[in-house]
C-alpha cells in the first residue's frame, strides 16, 4: 500500500535519509525503530508530503504522492505528531473533532462533540477533559489527545510518532492495545515509530530498523530476536557496545 523507493533527504549538509526502501502492505502494522535523530519522523512526514524528499519515489496505492489530489489523499490519513501538535487556541474536544467540524466530514457540533468524547474515552481520558485547553494538560495527556485526534475520523492509514513516550506503563499498555485494535478491527494500515520495545512487540506485524539513513533490517516481528543482525541486536537489547556508536 505504501512504498518508499530510494528516498533521499538532506537538511543542508546533514544527510538524513540516504536511500530508504520500505514497503507496507494494506492492513499491516509496521513499526519503525532506530536511534534518536536517525530520521524516523522525517520519513513519516515525507510520506504525508509535509517534507519534500530530495530524490526517490513515494507511492500510496501505486500512485505517486505528488500526483495525488491533495485533499482526497490527506483525508485517508491520520497522524499523531511526536510533540502532540495540538491547537492551543481550541479546547480539547474541538481539537479531537477538528476534522468533523469542517470540510467534507462536517456534522452538527453536538454530534462532533459526542464523537470526540468517545474517542477521548478510548485513549483513557475522562469527559471532563473535553472542555480544558491543551496547555492545561500534562504531557502524557496531550499525547493521548493527539492520538484521539488522529483516529477521530477513522482514517484508513494512521501514523503514530512515538505514541507511548511520556506515558506510565499502564497507560502505555492501553494505547498499545488501542493501536492493535484499530489495525485488527478497523483494518487500518499503521506505521508507528517507537523506542519502547514492549510497544514494538505489542503493536507490530513487521519491524523496520532505520540506521545511517537506510533501512538496516526489516522483517516480521517474530524474526526480530534471532535476526543475526548486529545492529538490530544491539538496539533491541539496548547495549552500549556494538556497531552503533553511542555519540551521534
Amino acid at each position, binding site marked *: 500500500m505504501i512504498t518508499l523507493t530510494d528516498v533521499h533527504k538532506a537538511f543542508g549538509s546533514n544527510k538524513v535519509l540516504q536511500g530508504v526502501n520500505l514497503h507496507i502492505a494494506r492492513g499491516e502494522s509496521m513499526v519503525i525503530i532506530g536511534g534518536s535523530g536517525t530520521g524516523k519522523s522525517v520519513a513519516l512526514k515525507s510520506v504525508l508530503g509535509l517534507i519534500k524528499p530530495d530524490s526517490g519515489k513515494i507511492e500510496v496505492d501505486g500512485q505517486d504522492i505528488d500526483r495525488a489530489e491533495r485533499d482526497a489523499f490527506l483525508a485517508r*490519513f491520520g497522524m499523531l505528531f511526536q510533540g502532540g501538535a495540538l*491547537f*492551543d487556541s481550541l479546547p480539547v474536544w474541538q481539537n479531537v473533532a477538528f476534522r468533523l467540524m469542517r*470540510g467534507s466530514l462536517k456534522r452538527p457540533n453536538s454530534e462532533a462533540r459526542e464523537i470526540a468524547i468517545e474517542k477521548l474515552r478510548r485513549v483513557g481520558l475522562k469527559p471532563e477533559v473535553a472542555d480544558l485547553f491543551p496547555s492545561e494538560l500534562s504531557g502524557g495527556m496531550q499525547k493521548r489527545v493527539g492520538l484521539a485526534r488522529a483516529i477521530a475520523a477513522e482514517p484508513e492509514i494512521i501514523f503514530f510518532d512515538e505514541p507511548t513516550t511520556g506515558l506510565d506503563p499502564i497507560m502505555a499498555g492501553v494505547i498499545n492495545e488501542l493501536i492493535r485494535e484499530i489495525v485488527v478491527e478497523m483494518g487500518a494500515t499503521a506505521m508507528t515509530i517507537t523506542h519502547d520495545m514492549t510497544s514494538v512487540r505489542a503493536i507490530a506485524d513487521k519491524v523496520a530498523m532505520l540506521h545511517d539513513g537506510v533501512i538496516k533490517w526489516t522483517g516480521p516481528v517474530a524474526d526480530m530476536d534471532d535476526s543475526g543482525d548486529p545492529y538490530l541486536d544491539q538496539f533491541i537489547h539496548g547495549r552500549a557496545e556494538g556497531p552503533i556508536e553511542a555519540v551521534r
Partner: protein
Amino acid sequence: MINTLTSPLAALGRQILGMLAIVGKIAMFAFDTLTHLIRPPFYWREFGIQLIHIGWLSLPVVGLTTLFTGGALALQIYAGGARFNAESVVPSIVAIGMVRELGPVLAGLMVAARVASSIAAEIGTMKVTEQIDALVTLSTHPMKYLTLPRVLAATLAMPILVAVGDAIGIMGGYFVGISRLDFNSAAYLKNTVDFLELWDVSSGMIKGAAFGFIVATMGCFYGMNSGRGAQGVGSATKTAVVAASILILATNYLLTELFFSA
C-alpha cells in the same frame, strides 16, 4: 587591493539581491492569499474571531493615540499660526491633518505594533510546534484557515478604526481648542465640518485598508516562515513589525502622491 575596495559593494549588492528576493516572496504570498478568497471553503468563524481581535480590541490603542495627537496638533498649529495671525485655522488644519495623514498612519503603526506582532508570534509558534503541519494533515489549508481570515479582517477593520481614530483625534483637538485656546465650541465644530470634504475622509480610510492588508500579510508571512525554536519566533515577530511599519510609511507616501499631488 581591488578586492578590498569592491567587497563593500559586493556586500551591498548581496543585501539588495536578498531584499529583492524577499519582496518577491512576499508579493507571491500576498497573491496566494488573495486567490484563496475565491476558492472555497471560507472559514467564517475564524474571520469573525479575527475581526474582534484585530478590529474591536485595537480600538482603545488607536483611540488613545489619536486623542493625544489631536490635542498636541491643535497646540502646535495654534502656536505656528500665531506667527502670522492665523490662529483661526486650527480647527480646519487639525481636521484635515488628522483624517488625511495622522489618522491612517497612526492607526496603521499602532495596529502594526499590536497585530503584526501577535499574528507573527502566534503563527510562528504554531509552525515550530508542528501545528501548521497538523492542520495540513487534517485536510485544512493553512492559508485558508490562518492567513486569509486575518488578512481580510485587518483590511476591512482598519478603515473603520481609521474613521473612529479620526473622530477621536479631532475631538482631542476640539477639547484643547475650547479649554486651552479660547475657541468657541460651536464655532470650532462649524469650522471643522465646513472645511472637511468627503474625499479627505474616504482617502484616509482607503489608506487604512491598505495598511491593514500590509499589517496582516507581514504578520502571516513572517510567522509562516519563522525559524525553529523560540529564537526563530522572536526574530520573526520583530521582523514582521519592522517590515510592516516601514511598508506602511512608504505606502502612505505613495498613496498621498497618488491621491493629492496636483
